[in-house]
């Protein structure tokens, strides 16, 4: 534009100079000297007139040019602004982080994404390539830079890469970076512009899925995925099986995919469950069952199968996941256990029968013996020695009778899990007990203190509680400390939940340190007394427990013994 003006001005100068010279020559040669001034004046006037016109023309021309260029500039500016605005909008909309790298100067500009996505403050953001590279995870940076430089070298149009980018807090986010090169008309690289997309969530989800997939591929339980079917009485078709399935059944995926799951199910074994299974399939409900399945080699195995319905995004039932566990070993154990239990039950039954027969066979001759001795008692015997012998007979027979009766009681208690209970007046029971022991009581003359005001009536089995108290009372009377007066304290206590009977004496006591664990055991005798059978406390405990109670003992040698019997209130 300027050149054109110069050309015009130069042309104007040359033309003016030529004109001036020609006019001058013409005037010198052809014009009389008196006319010189007139001619020069005319010439001067001509230049004076022509020059402003020319200048105005030039100015006008220039003005027009300026205006045009201003307009075009404004237009460009406007377009640029709009384009920038669009760029910003796009950047905002994509939530990508945009970077602009001036390869010639090395300048590096980030858009606001670097703050929003990665948490950097404005002042922290670097303005060179180095800053970008520093933020790339060390494990990724080498591979990434090699790829990037070879791309710039080859001047391919588009570049993309995955790497981890550091946030302001030092953590890394997975990013997907895409860029393109800007080149001049000579295909020299001048800029590169890129967009970083944060794909951490996708990446994490991917890793989570990978992990979940590992579960399916690594688990020892076989996993079968079947399609959902709406056709009645049709078994769902298999779409996936995991390696454990192949290991468990011997079937390779291609052998079963597309087939019904009944291929390896023994229909007979699920017959019991088939109705429920069909129902669950129809209702799309989770179902757990056991089935005897067949391996490819026809071998059978027990499996615990749980079928879980899976819904798709639209909440429509799409698949079933069946997880199968080989429970053959457990099943075998279960069978063994059942077998063992039935064997034990039979043994128990036999033993029970045996004890009844034994007791019967013992009791039969013993009862004869007792009866015969009863008869003898009525016959007067003159011979003193014979009398002595018969007394010995009687005593031994009575003891044997007592022992067998106790044993019989134990058998009966152990054989009857539930017993009848009734409301019993405790004082009446004690009166009965005292009556039965009247001989021993008159002999040992104990002081008996009874305090039953808290509980007078108790709901128990009458025969049992009588036997319990009889046993405890007999023990107290038998094992008294000969040096002091025998005292027996009997009391009752009632709380909101329990009723307690306490039976305390000042007898010889039991060494609980030595005998604590076997005091209620069978055939345990703690004193060297001839008539002790070692059965009483075992019987007491059995009777207390069969009525749902507990018995406790506290004792000190030479001081006395306290038995506490606790029953839960009904």
């Amino acid at each position, binding site marked *: 534009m300027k050149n054109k003006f110069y050309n015009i001005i130069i042309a104007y100068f040359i033309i003016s100079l030529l004109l001036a010279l020609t006019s001058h020559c013409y005037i010198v040669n052809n014009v009389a000297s008196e006319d010189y001034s007139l001619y020069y004046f005319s010439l001067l006037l001509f230049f004076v007139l022509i020059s402003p016109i020319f200048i105005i023309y030039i100015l006008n021309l220039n003005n027009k040019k300026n205006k045009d260029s201003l307009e075009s500039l404004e237009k460009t500016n406007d377009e640029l602004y709009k384009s920038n605005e669009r760029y910003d909008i796009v950047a905002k909309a994509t939530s990508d982080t945009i970077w602009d790298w001036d390869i010639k100067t090395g300048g590096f500009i980030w858009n606001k994404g670097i703050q929003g996505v990665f948490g950097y403050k404005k002042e922290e953001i670097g303005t060179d390539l180095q800053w970008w590279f520093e933020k790339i995870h060390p494990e990724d940076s080498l591979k990434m830079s090699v790829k990037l430089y070879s791309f710039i070298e080859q001047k391919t149009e588009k570049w993309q890469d995955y790497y981890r980018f550091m946030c302001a807090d030092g953590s890394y986010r997975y990013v997907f970076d895409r860029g393109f090169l800007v080149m001049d008309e000579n295909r020299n690289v001048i800029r590169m512009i890129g967009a970083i997309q944060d794909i951490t969530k996708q990446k994490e989800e991917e890793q989570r899925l990978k992990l979940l997939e590992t579960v399916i591929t690594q688990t020892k339980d076989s996993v079968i995925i079947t399609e959902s079917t709406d056709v009645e009485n049709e078994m769902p078709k298999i779409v996936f099986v995991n390696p454990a399935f192949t290991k468990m059944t011997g079937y390779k995926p291609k052998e079963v995919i597309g087939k019904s799951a009944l291929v390896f199910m023994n229909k007979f074994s699920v017959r019991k469950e088939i109705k429920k299974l069909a129902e669950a399939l129809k209702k799309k409900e989770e179902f757990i069952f056991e089935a005897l399945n067949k391996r490819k080699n026809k071998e059978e195995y027990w499996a615990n199968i749980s079928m879980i319905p899976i819904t798709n995004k639209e909440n429509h039932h799409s698949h079933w996941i069946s997880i199968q566990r080989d429970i053959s070993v457990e099943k075998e154990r279960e069978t063994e256990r059942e077998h063992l239990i039935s064997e034990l039950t039979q043994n128990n039954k036999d033993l029970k029968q045996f004890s009844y027969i034994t007791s*019967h066979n013992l009791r039969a001759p013993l009862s004869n013996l007792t*009866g015969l001795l009863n008869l003898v008692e009525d016959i007067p015997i003159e011979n003193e020695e014979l009398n002595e012998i018969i007394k010995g007979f009687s005593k031994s027979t009575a003891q044997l009778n007592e022992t067998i009766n106790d044993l019989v009681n134990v058998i009966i208690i152990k054989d009857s899990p539930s017993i009848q209970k009734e409301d019993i007046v405790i004082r009446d029971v004690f009166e009965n007990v005292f009556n039965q022991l009247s001989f021993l009581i008159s002999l040992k003359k104990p002081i008996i203190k009874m305090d039953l005001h808290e509980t007078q009536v108790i709901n128990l089995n009458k025969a049992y509680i009588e036997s319990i108290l009889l046993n405890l009372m007999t023990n107290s009377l038998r094992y008294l400390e000969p040096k002091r007066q025998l005292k027996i304290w009997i009391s009752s206590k009632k709380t909101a939940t329990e009723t307690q009977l306490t039976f305390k004496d000042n007898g010889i006591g039991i060494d609980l340190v030595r005998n604590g664990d076997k005091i209620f055991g069978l055939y345990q005798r703690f004193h060297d007394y001839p008539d002790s059978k070692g059965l009483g406390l075992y019987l007491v405990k059995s009777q207390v427990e069969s009525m749902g109670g507990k018995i406790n003992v506290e004792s000190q040698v030479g001081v006395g013994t306290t038995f506490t019997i606790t029953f839960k209130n009904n």
Partner: protein
Amino acid sequence: MMYNKILFVDDDPITLMLCKKVIERAEFSKEIVTANNGEDAIKYFDNLKSKINSDDTLTLPELMFLDLNMPVMGGWEFLDIFSKENYHMVFPNLKVIVLSSTIDPKDIEKSKSYSMVIDFLSKPITKEILKSIIKT
């Protein structure tokens, strides 16, 4: 004397001897008949049945003590036959007391299912027991 005639069924001769003596001493019955097992007892009743219409002087047993465990035919089998074959129609006044050494509670329950059984006693039989029977 409480009873005119009682029948005692037991396989054990000592038990029989013992019971006889107790009954005699207690003057419980004028006459005591014994049988060694259920089959013997059935034969005894068959014999009575054949004479019952011809012999007017015949005394029928009023009470019977029955053991349970006996060879050849036990107490239960005897009771089954006796009730199934309508012996009790011929001997309607006969009462049975089961006398056993058993302790099995099931036996006691079972004895209650026979209408002619009035009691279940544990051996040995004593004067006191006989007295209690008189009372009932």
